[in-house]
């Protein structure tokens, strides 16, 4: 964008402490525009915390976070969002009493310049209504248009969660465990959906399912104890000894063991 950085998102030695405990210990990452990055790591590695720092939910203790070359650490979530970064949440975070359509419309209003206007009618906001309808079809909830978000099924809520995230047209999308709690078939459907709705965007996603990770990501960032210990293509990350040692070896072994157990 403005500074014309070659990176859509860049983290430079980002640190975050809660009290005396340092959760993020100098994480660095350089994501190019259009890349799909899966952030993996053991529980408690700080994946969600990292997303919270990037999206402005928490302030970082030190280090720089740059969005398209522009420093965004210390900004409020809404300021970061206006600069073109949107995120979803691990636990669905919807406008519970509003309908599917209204949820999506709320998510597009700022990006289309409606700001705090109370001198225009929503009914006349053609572009916002059209965009909300469009996203609703993308996430396949058009048949549930007038259902309140709290009355949706779990999978529908997860879809709406992603719909709200992408609706504003942000260039950088962070998805925090988008497939958490879903069945195998739902997960497969969801991976396709995520791929469809994030075409041309820079995508960062926290994911536990290794099948999803290797299927969706161009690059994998491995976060262990608040540090990015590897950031590379899936093949190279898989072969990386340090990763094997710290994390992936055990996870893969576990999943293979599970599959083996399931086969019997």
């Amino acid at each position, binding site marked *: 964008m403005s500074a014309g950085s070659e990176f859509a998102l860049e983290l430079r030695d980002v640190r975050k402490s809660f009290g005396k405990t340092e959760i993020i210990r100098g994480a660095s990452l350089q994501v190019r525009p259009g890349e799909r990055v899966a952030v993996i790591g053991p529980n408690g590695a700080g994946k969600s915390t990292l997303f919270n720092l990037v999206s402005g939910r928490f302030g970082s203790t030190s280090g720089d976070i740059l969005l398209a070359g522009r420093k965004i650490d210390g900004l*409020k979530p*809404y300021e970061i969002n206006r600069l073109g970064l949107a995120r979803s949440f691990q636990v669905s*975070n919807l406008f519970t009493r509003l309908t599917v359509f209204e949820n999506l419309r709320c998510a597009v209003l700022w*990006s289309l310049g*409606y*700001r*705090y206007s109370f001198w225009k009618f*929503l009914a006349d906001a053609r572009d916002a209504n059209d965009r909300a309808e469009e996203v609703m079809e993308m996430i396949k909830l058009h048949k549930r*248009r007038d259902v309140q978000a709290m009355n949706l099924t779990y999978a529908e809520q997860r879809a709406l969660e992603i719909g*709200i995230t992408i609706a504003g047209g942000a260039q950088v999308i962070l998805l925090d465990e988008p497939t958490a709690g879903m069945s195998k078939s739902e997960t497969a459907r969801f991976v396709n959906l995520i791929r469809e709705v994030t075409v041309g965007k820079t995508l960062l996603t926290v994911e536990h399912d290794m099948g999803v990770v290797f299927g969706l990501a161009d690059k994998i960032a491995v976060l262990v104890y608040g540090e990015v210990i590897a950031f590379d293509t899936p093949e190279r990350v898989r072969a990386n000894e340090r990763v094997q040692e710290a994390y992936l070896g055990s996870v893969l072994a576990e999943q293979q063991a599970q599959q083996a157990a399931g086969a019997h």
Partner: protein
Amino acid sequence: MHHPGKVYRFRPYNVGRWVVWGLYAIVMLVAPLLFTSSLSLTMLSQMGIAIIACLAFNMLLGQGGMLSFGHAVYSGLGSFFAIHTLNMVSAGTLALPVSLVPVVGGLAGMAVSILLGYVTTKKAGTPFAMITLGVGELVWAMSLMFPGFFGGEGGISGNRVAGEPFLGITFGPQIQLYYLIAIYTFVCTAAMFAFTRTPLGRMLNAVRDNPERVEFVGYNTQIVRYIAFIASGFFMGISGGLAALNFEIVTAEVVSAVRSGAFLLFTFLGGAVFFFGPIIGAILMVLALVLLSELTQAWLLYLGLVFTFMVMYAPGGISSLIMMNLRVAAFGKLRPLLASYLALAGTGFVILAGSGAMIEMLYHLQLNQALGPELKFMGASLNAKDLDSWFGAAFVLAIGVALFEMTRRQFVREWGETQEWIEKEIKRREAAL
């Protein structure tokens, strides 16, 4: 581009809405012709004033999820600014038509809420409620400290027949003022309804539901709350300005916590979930404050009981009860429930008779000693010092409670079955799409 399965296309004209608004206008137009006594005219005027206030209060409570304990500050200060303006018009120092005095009240309410709302809306939820309580106490304390502006115990009085009459309208007769109030009520209701259809109005709902997520779709929740608060303050001020014209006297109690509590209580009773709920609440407020308080000394007790039951059993207020039954009616299932409703009403009345008799006797003993132990209640003669009356009342109450509980259980079962049927029917229709 348009999906064949899509059923909804946006409809710019909504016939039902025109009918509802037309009826609203007609009711206000015709009401004083049907209820012609001076008492009913006074009450109708007060209802209009209360409707604006409760709707404005609900911009925060129902639409923004902000519970204000001190909202009388904005209507009350609007009243004071309006009455001072009126007195300037009377004195000839200000050439302003009397019909525009309420607008001055509105602007005052707005200015005050720009000032105080900035602090208040920095927080949401419980801290917000606490700050409104504090601000309310602050202004109440100030009203005693500045008798020049607030008029001390006697308040500030004025005369609404001031300045040049316009087309012979002086606002001297109550009926003329009533129609002024009616016009303001209609316009303010329309404006507040329109507000709910704007981007800001919708984002206010989003802030109510999930302030955190709002921050991640680009909006500063604090600004959303602040603007809504100012808009609410403006309409509260208009209501206060109309009250100043109506009563021609403004005393410090208009900014009191009691008044704030009344807005909260009746808005809630009417129902904060639906836009029209506070209108019902406002009508009830005037009926309770004017009629019920005449009927019985224990009216606050009855009001408290009703409020408690409402919070416990129907937190959506009367408007949500209406809407739930309209839904049942829309599915053609209301008729079977009518018998239960009649039974509930009948047994409820028996409870009211029994408990009412006891409450009235108690009040009579405490407050009306000098009048002797005899009193009239619902046409029956009771003797507050006679055990027969107490036993009789207790007996009626016990019977009422037993019968009511029986019908209530029956009703709950029927209601549950009806709702289940409707849910299934909705699913079936959805699947058929």
